[in-house]
Structure formats: C-alpha cells, structure tokens
C-alpha cells in the first residue's frame, strides 16, 4: 500500500481517545495524520493475521531467556535529595503534584 492510499481503520474519535489515554494534547491538524499512521499499523497487523500461526507459540519476549532473578537483599537507595533533584515540583522530602481527590 502506498503512502497516499487512505485507510480509515481508526476514526478521529479513536485518535482522541488514545491521545487522552496517553495524556497527549494534539493539534487538530495532527489528528488526520495520526489517524493515517495508526490505521496503517492496523493494516500491517491484519496482514500478519493472515499468516498461519496454528503451531507457533505466542512470543511474549524475543530473548531466549528466563528466570533472571536477584536475591532478596536490601541495597542502598538514593538520598531523598538526589531522588527529588529533577522533580518538576517538590516540598520538603515530598514530590508535589496537582491536588488529586478520590
């Protein structure tokens, strides 16, 4: 499929929804672009779906590794000063965020 071909697997509303889930603010002009890009990804997935994977175990990881563990030992942590150094907002030893009410 060429870049110019239109695909509408994803609606503008879905673009808005995904942007909201990702906490992204999008300019209106960017939305159709994102719609195309996301739709093309789905087109590709559709292509993959046509393959026969009947006897293939699902791949959750690409590395042929398992059971990588650490022993349960407490190690030194960062100092609160270092941990808070790059915080966008802080107060004393706390990170500070806009008020959240449950």
């Amino acid at each position, binding site marked *: 499929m060429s870049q110019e071909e239109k695909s509408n697997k994803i609606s503008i509303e879905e673009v808005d929804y995904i942007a909201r889930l990702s906490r992204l603010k999008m300019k209106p002009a960017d939305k159709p672009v994102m719609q195309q890009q996301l739709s093309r990804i789905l087109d590709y997935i559709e292509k993959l779906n046509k393959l026969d994977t009947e006897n293939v175990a699902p791949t959750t990881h690409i590395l042929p590794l398992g059971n990588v563990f650490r022993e*349960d030992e407490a190690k030194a942590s960062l100092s609160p000063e270092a941990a808070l150094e790059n915080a966008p907002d802080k107060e004393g030893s706390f990170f500070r965020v*806009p008020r959240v009410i449950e």
Partner: protein
Amino acid sequence: MTYEPVIGLEIHAQLTTQSKMFCGCSTKFEQAPNSSICPVCLGLPGVLPVVNKKAVEYGMLTALALNCRIVPHNIFARKNYFYPDLPKGYQVSQYEQPLAQKGFVQLEINGRSQRIGINRVHLEEDAGKLLHQNSKDNKVSWVDFNRTGIPLMEIVSEPDIFSAEAAKAFMVKLRDIMAYIGVCDCNMEEGSLRCDANVSIRRVGEKELGVKAEVKNMNSFRFLQRALEYEIERQVAELEAGGRIIQETRLWDEAKGITVSMRSKEEAHDYRYFPEPDLVPVMVEEGWVERLSKTLPELPDEKRTRFISQYQLPAYDAGVLTSSRELADYFENCAKLFAEYKMLSNWIMGELLRELKQQGVDIKRCPVNPENLANMLKLIQQGVISGKIAKQVFEEMYRTGATAQDIVKAKGLEQITDTQQILSIIDQVIQQNPDSVAAYKAGKTRIIGFLIGQVMQLSRGKANPQVLNKLLADRLKDQK
C-alpha cells in the same frame, strides 16, 4: 422474594521480603519519606528491573498452600494508567499467564464444609502513597514513593461466597495460611493485607449473576463483614423498591456504617495490558515446585487435625490452639513437659490467653515460658497448690517472670493437706458459727458451702479442698 448474595474477593497481600519486587530498595515500614527509592522503582529512563526471587517463591508457596496449579511459564505485564502515585505510568503486574491458577480453600461455615475456588494468584508491585490536606484552597497533594515497588501478591477468589460471614471466614482462613507460611504480616489495619469485594445478588435458584458493585476500604476483618452485610441489604432494598443495581465502586464508611458510591467521573478503565519487555518469563520446572513443597510448614487445618488425634483435644480447643503457629508451638513445647493435655489446654486458653489479650501482648513475647507454665501445672497435679491458688501464682508468674516454685515458697502458698492442721481450723469455724451448725443439723445441708468458705478464708485459700470437704462433713456428723 428471597435473594442470595454472590461474593468474590480480591486480596492484596504485601510480601515480607527485605527488598522490593524489582530493585534493592528496602521494604522497611515507616522510613523517612522518599528515602527508599531508586532509579528502578522511580521508573527513570534506561533502568532495568530484575525480579526478586524470594517474592516469586513466596507467591509459589502460597499458591501451593491454596491448592493452585503453578503456571509453568508465567510472565509479567504492564498495566497502563496515569495516577500520581505511579511514577512509571504503568504498574508491573501479571495478566495472562499469571503465577498460579485454579486452587481452592476448604472452609467450615456453620458446621458445613464448603469449598471456595481460587481463580488465580499473581505478583505485582505496590504504588506510592499520596498525602492530601483537607482544606478547600489547597491545590496540591504530596507523594511518598517508599511503598512503590513493594511486592504484592494478589489472590482472586471465584464468586463462590454466599454470605458476609463466609467472606470473613474465608479472609481469616487466608490470613491464617499466609501467617503460617510467613509470607505476609497480614495486618489489615496497617494495610499489609487488603481486600476488595465484588458483590451482587440474585434470586435464590437463579444461575445467572446479577450486576455487581465493587466494595473497597474495608480495613479490618470486622469491617469486611459489616460492609458486606450492609451492601447486600442495600442491593436487596434497591431491587425490592423496583430499582436497578449499577456497576460501580463503593467505599465502606465505617463511621456512618454505609457504603458510598465513588461517583467517579473517570471513564471506564482501559489498561492496555501487554507483556513487560524488560522482564523475562518465570519458568517453573517440576523440581522447583517439589523443592518448595518440601519447605511448606504444616498448615492450620493439618495441625488442627493432628492436635485432635495426638493430644485428644476437643475440636474447639484444637482450633484455638492452632489459630497461630506461635501459639501452637507454645502448646507443643508445654506438652513435651506436661502430659495432661486437656488441663494444659484449659490453662492456655483461659488464664494465659486472657492475660495476653488484656495486655495486648503477642504470644511470641509471653512472659511465662512453657517450662514455667508446665512446672506450675505439675505443682497442681502433685497437690502442692490448689487450682485456685494456682491462678494467683500464675498472675505473679506473668507479672514477674519468676518460677512457680519460687513464688509458692516465697509466699507460703503450699496447699495444706495435713489433717490435723485443717481439723483445727474446722473446729475454730464450728465454734464461731453455732447458728450455721445448728441449721445444718436441722436439715439445711446446703449451708455447708458457707462453712467451707469460712475454713478456706482462715487458711488463706490453702486448705486442700478434697481433704477439707471430707473432714468437715465428718466433723458435722459428729456434732450430735
């Protein structure tokens, strides 16, 4: 119309590891804010989390105790959502292919045995702690990430629970099992053990489940039962009034004794789980499971059954004594030294537990050690002290930690069994109470209790009751 509730529980248990789930930060409780955090648990770019092996084994041990099947190839997943207590923007959890599945717990409810299914056991990490200040013009909250990344085990029951009472019993059972294995502190008040409930009701006989409400914020075993009782009543009343149950989250308000809708404006959760690329699978071979199974301690049910057969104890006693591993050990340590098990059980369940409860002391810190208790019971058995005096001795032992022998000697509490000594007190009492003696002779034989009391008082409780009873009865007969 009769309805029945259907309840499923989701339990979160904080595992008692030294370090966090994926990094070496300490899990110690109540540290200075943000002092137990590192690039890994803060989710800074470029870090690599590594699984804590002990957390996996604790999860497996619990799963085995709950009769679950360990999933041979289990994986971690990212649960994506934004909240300020979640620094990475996702929680590492397990979704498809969790640690273990399909287990059960056997419960006794009102004398009937019931099996409650366990849907799954999986591992995940805890979130941080948000602090709010209750003032209207306050525009900020504060975050402490110490708790972020602490290993949690989630246990999900099947909707096999049909009363608030059974839900509590199930929770208590899980607590007992986890405390026996030592994988969790199991303190609901402090939050190391948490529980959410899915509650729905349906007409009796119906197969299909009703719309469920999720009830949260029940941080004690008692609150759990009360919250569920309330929620069941609320749903029944709603349906009876022609209303409908809506799927929502409700918080238990203990002060008001009601559940309150969270009325969350947030849209339906869409967590977009996907396999955590930074963590490789946990592969569990048979050998590993077998090795772990061998380290499982005797569990509460097994121990109770053994106590009944080995010590010939009533089921009730066995249940109380095995309610914690430490108490059971205490009993067994005593039982090695003192073989009258029922008498021993009576003293532990009575005096000892009452004293511990009153002082709020754990059996682990019991000031009377098994040897001292056994020695005191031997003194009763040998007739050195009476059962009544023993209570006094026990209190003294509890207070001072001294041995029974020392207390009895120092306070002169040995029982008087000497016939002459007791007779002389009896004669004194008979002389001082001619009216009572006359009444006895006139047929009011029950007055003998009063006379016994008088003798006991004069002997400061030390007269041997059996000897006294016999001597007094004989003496009164002689008074012609």
